[in-house]
């Protein structure tokens, strides 16, 4: 860098840096202090933060009341299993996008992309109209049309050779507000028997997914699948294509190509993806608050428990907050880059 800064200017910047850093860090700092104070001392912060005695009792109380370790266990189970399950879907998909042999485009790409986008919006609106119409008229033809409308965008998506378009399509689903999908998901989790009987006319029996790992693991997998695919894709993309070509020349099949050649080279990328997914699952609150309460409740549920009945017990609240974020603070330190990379859908590499 060609800019030369005078020493004075540089130290001024450093000073400002510390000031801004302090302001940004202040709430976390405050929470960190309060967690180690008695309830009364926490209340009289900040005057006494150096003088009042330090204590670990808040942590003991929180653990005794809510069994923190159980929540940590639940969070870990959901995060790890959902990531592994997600990888099962994501690795083939990312492989498909990263190493699909590309031919020179022979059609006008912008026209094709136009068509794709239009098709997507057309499909969504028409499908809403048709599903309504189907239930109103009980016309199987309309039902068939509905299936086609689901099928067409999928087919178009798979067929489009522009990887960027595929990724965009996938990532755009991640942007939908979860409240829009909560009711159906909840019904599938909990009133599935009823839903299938009413909606599809088939009796699959009742089963419960609320507050179970069997429900939360696939759900969390789904939520993060677009990001996982995207992450893997960017890592796969860095693997030289020639190696794969060489393997194909040697007659390696699809499975061998994946397991013998690709997987070993992709291990660092997969590990980063796993880390990111753990963090995402860790912070997920919307779904866990609404769909769990005990057996499969993760840390976000644990911390929300302290927001309602214990409003004024700030020291315990701080201790609970600290316990909930501590693993993330540690992981976050090591995985900043993955975090930003994953959460920004690739705006930053």
């Amino acid at each position, binding site marked *: 860098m060609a800019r030369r800064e005078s020493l004075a200017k540089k130290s001024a910047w450093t000073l400002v*840096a510390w000031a801004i850093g302090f302001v940004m860090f202040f709430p976390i700092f405050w929470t960190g202090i309060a967690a180690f104070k008695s309830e009364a001392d926490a209340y009289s912060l900040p005057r006494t933060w150096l003088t009042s005695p330090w204590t670990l009792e808040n942590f003991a109380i929180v653990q005794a009341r809510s069994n923190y370790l159980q929540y940590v266990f639940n969070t870990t189970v959901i995060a790890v299993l959902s990531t592994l399950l997600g990888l099962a879907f994501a690795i083939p998909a990312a492989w498909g996008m990263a190493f699909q042999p590309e031919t020179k485009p022979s059609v006008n790409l912008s026209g094709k992309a136009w068509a794709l986008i239009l098709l997507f919006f057309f499909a*969504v609106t028409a499908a809403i109209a048709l599903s309504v119409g189907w239930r109103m008229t009980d016309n199987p033809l309309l039902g068939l049309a509905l299936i086609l409308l689901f099928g067409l965008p999928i087919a178009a998506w798979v067929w489009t050779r522009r990887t960027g378009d595929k990724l965009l399509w996938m990532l755009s689903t991640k942007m939908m507000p979860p409240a829009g999908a909560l009711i159906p998901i909840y019904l599938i989790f909990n009133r599935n028997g009823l839903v299938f009987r009413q909606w599809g006319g088939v009796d699959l029996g009742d089963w419960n997914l609320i507050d179970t790992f069997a429900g939360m693991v696939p759900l969390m997998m789904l939520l993060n699948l677009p990001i996982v695919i995207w992450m893997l894709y960017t890592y796969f993309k860095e693997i030289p294509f020639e190696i794969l070509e060489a393997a194909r020349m040697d007659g390696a099949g699809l499975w061998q190509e994946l397991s013998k050649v690709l997987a070993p080279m992709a291990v660092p990328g997969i590990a980063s993806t796993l880390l990111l997914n753990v963090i995402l699952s860790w912070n997920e609150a919307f779904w866990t608050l609404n769909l769990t309460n005990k057996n499969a409740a993760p840390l976000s549920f644990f911390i929300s428990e302290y927001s309602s009945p214990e409003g004024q017990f700030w020291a315990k609240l701080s201790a609970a907050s600290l316990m909930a974020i501590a693993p993330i603070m540690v992981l976050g330190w090591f995985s900043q880059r993955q975090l930003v990379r994953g959460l920004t859908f690739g705006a930053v590499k």
Partner: protein
Amino acid sequence: MTPAESAAKFRARLRNQAPAALALLPAAIVVAVVYVGSMLMTARLSFSSSHMLPTFDWAGGEQYSRLFDTERFVESTQHIALFGVLFIVASLTLGFLLAVFIDQKVRFEALFRTIFLYPFSMSFIVTGLVWQWMLHPELGIEKTVRAWGFAHFTFRWIVDENLVVYTLVIAAVWQASGLVMAILLAGLRGVDAELWKATKIDAIPTWRVYWSVILPTLGPMLTTAAVLLAVSVAKLFDLVVAMTRGGPGISSEVPAKFIMDNFFGRSNVALGSAAATMLLVTVVAVVGPWVYFEHFRRKGVRA
């Protein structure tokens, strides 16, 4: 090209692409069926008369007329609009300043980057709880400033029905500006060193360079950041629940909370679905143009 040739070419293409397409299929089906399917079902339920349990009868636009007659929903949309605009503008501004600032090659750069990013790695629940305390009318910031000697300092926005939305903005900006910083910093680091040399020679002040030369080149990054922030606006729920619970009164209610309350506590599945559908339509209207924009930005560049 003869028909036979093109058919052979097509077959070759099929043979080449079929495995890749097959590999993509499971993920595509899962995403399409679950996401799109859920949204369709939500839309369908909004035209029913469902209460505690879903029924797929037909009640026409009844829920929508009630929805727009419901003061709480109408106000929720106003809150979210105000919150959204302020939150996006403030986060972009602050994030940009932080990025410019880190770009000055301050010492311990990595440390500051991490500190600025830390709030972002905390969930909205924790953010909400921490800020609830910071903004409490008798504790937190007010108390701290008073302890510094300003005995009459008051900062009670969180209990003021006209100002409470701004407190949500403060907490959310605190949480998100680190993310904007990270996105923009990557852009700043991509700026050519030659550019700086040139502007130094012409004695253009640094702030002018940032404002007139560099900011315009950050356009795509700013758009991405803005879209990410906009998406989190539509999702806003846990922050409100942890921080204000919609109060005082209904002055910090948001659509997502309205949906939840109607769905769970009030046994009002159809009305909640109608509100959810409105939310979805709005988000599609925002994300759609972005998808379009992104596509044309990447046009010509093989992804």
